[in-house]
């Protein structure tokens, strides 16, 4: 899991640190995990159709697109920044890749068909550019990421709108179709891609120099600058990483859903932020990681999926999701406070 979790399982020679102190330090990691266990147990008991292998597969597939977006978002939130444009960038990139693919004649979109591999590269360049604009606004002009990405959310939505003009595109390059809706040995490719991206992000964050810098910039930006780190470069990089993950999620999502259209990804903004934060990554930066994000993804996945298995007013589901998110936020802030008290 995260760096912290490792520290607890392989305890360095810490002088008489009581179990209580360890629990306090690990509150951030333990609480989401307990939430997940409680939710799973609850749905398993109330619904016979919930705890089946088939449904487990459903949950995995359902969280995959969110998972790819959340992997990139984890970098941003670890730096104590935010990216509100991920869902819009996902949408724009998904539409872009369809725009560069030859559509069937009945689809009334003026598009520019190119070979499939080129379409994918164009789409990746497009999402990186949008991320680079976010990065430039944040580090060169100094616009707070909250505002900058709010603007980008609108810009990316505008690009989507211009490209499809209210129409729906269906065709994407065959590689994307395979990764988004195909399967290997019975496992959906999109699950494998999500797992790969989450694993890669985890390795980068935990075992590479860049990952360490992300954590240090998040926990004390001024100290990082005073140590001679290129803070602007790191912040810029996380914004681009976030946009690229969003772009990949967008392309695969389009293949997975079978169509590319306006506002297709709107719910993914809240879901991906929620996954990161519910998992216990600190909104104040420097704490948490991909391990937390994975737990957060499953909390949301189990919750969304489980509520479909119990007979419940579908309008009430939205409220329940909101309440669970609130509880997670409370725990997040509380864990931060406990930890600061312990480090004092």
């Amino acid at each position, binding site marked *: 899991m995260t760096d912290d979790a490792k520290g607890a399982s392989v305890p360095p020679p810490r002088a*008489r640190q009581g179990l209580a102190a360890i629990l306090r330090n690990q509150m951030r990691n333990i609480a989401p995990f307990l939430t997940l266990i409680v939710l799973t147990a609850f749905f398993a008991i109330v619904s016979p159709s919930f705890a089946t292998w088939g449904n487990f597969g459903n949950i995995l597939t359902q969280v995959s697109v969110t998972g790819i977006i959340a992997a990139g978002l984890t970098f941003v939130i670890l730096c104590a920044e935010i990216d509100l444009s991920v869902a819009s960038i996902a949408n724009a990139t998904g539409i872009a890749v369809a725009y560069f693919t030859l559509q069937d004649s009945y689809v009334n979109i003026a598009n520019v068909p190119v070979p499939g591999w080129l379409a994918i590269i164009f789409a990746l360049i497009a999402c990186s550019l949008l991320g680079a604009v976010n990065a430039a606004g944040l580090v060169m002009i100094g616009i707070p990421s909250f505002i900058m990405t709010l603007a980008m959310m609108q810009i990316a939505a505008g690009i989507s709108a211009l490209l499809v003009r209210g129409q729906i595109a269906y065709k994407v390059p065959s590689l994307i179709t395979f990764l988004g809706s195909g399967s290997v040995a019975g496992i959906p490719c999109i699950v494998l891609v999500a797992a790969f991206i989450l694993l890669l992000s985890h390795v980068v964050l935990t075992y590479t120099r860049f990952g*360490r810098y992300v954590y240090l910039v998040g926990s004390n930006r001024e100290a*990082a600058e*005073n140590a001679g*780190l290129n803070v602007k470069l790191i912040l810029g990089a996380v914004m681009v990483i976030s946009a690229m993950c969003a772009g990949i999620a967008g392309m695969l999502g389009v293949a997975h859903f079978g169509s590319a259209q306006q506002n297709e990804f709107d719910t993914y903004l809240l879901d991906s932020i929620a996954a990161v934060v519910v998992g216990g990554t600190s909104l104040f930066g420097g704490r948490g990681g991909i391990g937390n994000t994975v737990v957060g993804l499953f909390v949301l996945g189990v919750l969304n999926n489980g509520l479909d298995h119990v007979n419940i007013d579908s309008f009430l589901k939205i409220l329940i999701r909101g309440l669970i998110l609130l509880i997670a936020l409370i725990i997040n802030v509380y864990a931060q406070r406990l930890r600061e008290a312990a*480090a004092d």
Partner: protein
Amino acid sequence: MPDPNTPLLELIGVSKSFGGVQALRDVDFTLRAGEIHGLVGENGAGKSTMMKIIAGVHADYAGRFLLDGRAVHFRSARDAHTAGIAMVHQELSVAPDLSVAENVFLGTQLTNRLGIVQWRRMAEEARAQLARLGVDVDPRQQMGALPIGVQQLIEISRVLFSGARIIILDEPTSALSPPEIARLFTALRGLRASGASIVFISHFIDDILNVSDTVTVFRNGQKIMTAPAATSTKNGLIQSMIGRGHAELEDTYTSDIRLAPPIDRPVMLEAANLRLGRSLRDVSLAVRAGEVLGIYGFMGCGQAELARVLFGKTKPERGTIRVDGRRLRGGGTASARRAGMAFVPDSRRSMLFHQEPVYKNTSISILGRLSRLFLKPAQERALAARQIEALRIRPPRVDALLGGLSGGNQQKVGLAKWLTYPPKVLVLCEPTRGMDVGAKDEVVKIVRGLKEKGLAIIIVSSEPETVLSMADRIVVLRKGELVREFCDENVSKDRLLEAA
């Protein structure tokens, strides 16, 4: 006025530990009404911990706490505040984005009966209040734009005139110039005359003896002694603080110090015609390998800005900086570091990661040399262990969370990160601020050792002793201008103060 012999506040058998480290051991402490009580002790001796218990910051302790003879146990700083206890902490805690007046009235904004803030009245009263400490600033000015020393005085004034009857000052004078200290002491005596009790923590023993009625000495979490200031001597206090004879530490630099003659080594850092608003006016200087240059000036003379500009944190409006002949062209602190510069800022908060272990704090500047892509934690730990040993950092554990270390040890960790691969140029800002004599002595030794290794070192400080104890050559900065250079001649504290 109450009987001066009645204990206003009494701690009986108070103990406090942080995760296995005993910070206070069975301490008794008495504060009388209308006294100024000086507190001395080395870093980590427990002074600040005890004061934080009194001020309600630490609620989790063992022992009894009597206020006016009644047992109390504060759960928060707010509880203590309600009981009339206020504290100025060692580290500056102001709202840099608010105005001076808003900072003076932080939490106690003046309002009329409708709850509307009375800006004009606040500004006028803030101005009057600050004038009592001799601070002449526009109350509408933004706090963060002022020099640290002035900010500190403003914070002190907020607490001094808050109406609290017990006022705790933790190292209030470290950022202040002598005239500011004199005005602060006058204000403290005035408050004492009106019945307030003041606890005054300082490493400046002269200050303690000058202003206190009673002095208490701490060592290793225990109270060693309490005595009237009138019958205490500086030497006696130092002896009981460090528990051994240390006659040489008595040196106050009132006598002349002979600066070194010019040396013929290559210039490692050359700054030419640096200009930055009103803070720096055409500052030029050069430092050679194996030389320690002291930059002295009162708080706010531009020395903090000069240090920032040298390390690339602030881009000067004009002027050039060369490190070992190579010109720095923007690129911020990262390119300054790559060119061979190291920087130790004046506040621990801005150079350390309190929630991370020691080894991550020391390895941050050298990760690029350790690895291109993947981290090598084993090597990081080994190098950290070497620094811990070299600088005698306590506790000697690479995995200890930095936040659990005492201030002096944190300071050493902040320096340690630069020493694995010695830089060409080291800029130290206020390297001994808030340190006790023993720790200062260690810093002096470390700096001398680095000088022997051929580093070019710049010491930026507003404490004459700091500059005098380490520098081979001293330049004096006044209002953004270099006004005097001392080189190959005799210099003393008096002469430095005179020049500044």
